[in-house]
């Protein structure tokens, strides 16, 4: 398959969910767009060396998570965090502003800390197994399970405070 066709396929297959995942991770729409752009470029540059030792989805998610991590480590990001300890609304003209002011699952996830957000998003949103998350994040499966349990409890608490039913989150398989 020609490289540009392959890129088109990857964007069509993973683009939207990657963008949403990066947004949930970075809490900023424009940074999420940057992360998606960088993820696909890195993926294309290394596609030939991708040995299919993991699934394509796991591979591209790993690139995205590493890209987000690098963005969060960046000085500008840290400057922002130093100066504003709350969620930073994205610049106008994006589709997510409306969720900042009202209760929503998205809003609840954004209230979690970075590690909890990552666990929840990979497990529930990207529907990855504990084993796959362990592979992506470089943690043991038991560490991932612990993190996931903590994150789930915290998310449930936030959702209940926001008026959701007390039965808690569906735990998935």
């Amino acid at each position: 398959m020609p490289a540009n066709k392959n890129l088109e396929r990857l964007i069509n297959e993973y683009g939207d969910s990657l963008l949403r995942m990066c947004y949930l991770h970075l809490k900023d729409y424009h940074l999420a767009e940057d992360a998606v752009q960088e993820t696909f470029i890195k993926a294309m540059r290394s596609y030939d060396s991708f040995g299919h030792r993991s699934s394509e989805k796991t591979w591209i998610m790993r690139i995205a998570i590493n890209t987000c991590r690098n963005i969060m480590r960046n000085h500008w990001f840290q400057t922002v965090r130093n100066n504003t300890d709350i969620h930073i609304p994205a610049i106008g003209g994006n589709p997510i502003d409306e969720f900042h002011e009202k209760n929503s699952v998205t809003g609840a996830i954004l209230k979690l800390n970075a590690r909890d957000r990552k666990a929840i998003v990979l497990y529930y949103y990207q529907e990855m197994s504990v084993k796959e998350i362990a592979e992506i994040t470089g943690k043991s499966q038991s560490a991932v399970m612990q993190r996931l349990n903590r994150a789930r409890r915290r998310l449930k608490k936030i959702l209940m405070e926001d008026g959701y039913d007390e039965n808690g989150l569906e735990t998935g398989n």
Partner: protein
Amino acid sequence: MDMMKMDLKQEIDYELSGMTVSRELKNKIYKEADGRSGKYKLQRIIRTAAAVLAVIGLTATTAYAGYNLYHRLLVNQEALPELDKMEVVDMTPLNAAKDESGWIEKDYGSYKEIKDMLGVHLLDTRLAAAHPYMQCHIATDNKDNAMITVENYILGDTDGYEYSEEDKCYFYQQGEEYRSPVSLSVSLILSQEQLARGWDTEYMGYYRFVEDYTSAQGYKVNVLEDTVDGQTEHYISEKAAVFVADGIEYTVKGRTSLENIKMIVDSME
């Protein structure tokens, strides 16, 4: 809503259904993937909710009449005065495994450690005293280019450094003179191919060109500053001084006075 019955994925997709990869973003990705870019990097500042945005984008290099093909610095699409030329540097390859995208990324506790390891003479300053808060990082493909970043390079009168495990960075208290520590970025070109492709840096959004001058060491320097909050009386803007020395690009950046930034640049040898 009964959370037991809630499908979280479906709910997120519903709530964020308007968030899709736009045609514009797709085109940017295609263009970058086509190899029409010298290097790729985007960094943004978003400081307040009041539509404050600055972007440093390293964009496509094309032949540009009457201008140095190899290295341009732009602010909002306007080319700044030409700097000294970048050159191919003979760096000792980093001995580490590449990640899935063909890159090596490593953290170090000091700039000196990186300098010793790379075997390249890199400028440094006596103003960067030894302290435990320096966060150094190198990203390279060992082939075309390498980028070093040193956060908290010079602390000035900032204080109260506390490490955040979650964010993997230090939080600090602003000083009177230095509203942020000063960071250093160093870019090295490792191949003729990269040199031919170029090494452009574009600052987009809330940035403006301040001045160009020749440093005490004889390097041409461009100074930029953010215009994020120009209306506040005591706001100290973030300055970025960019120059090329011995073919290597350096960027010194921090929220302090122009005089302090110049003093730091002049002290680099």
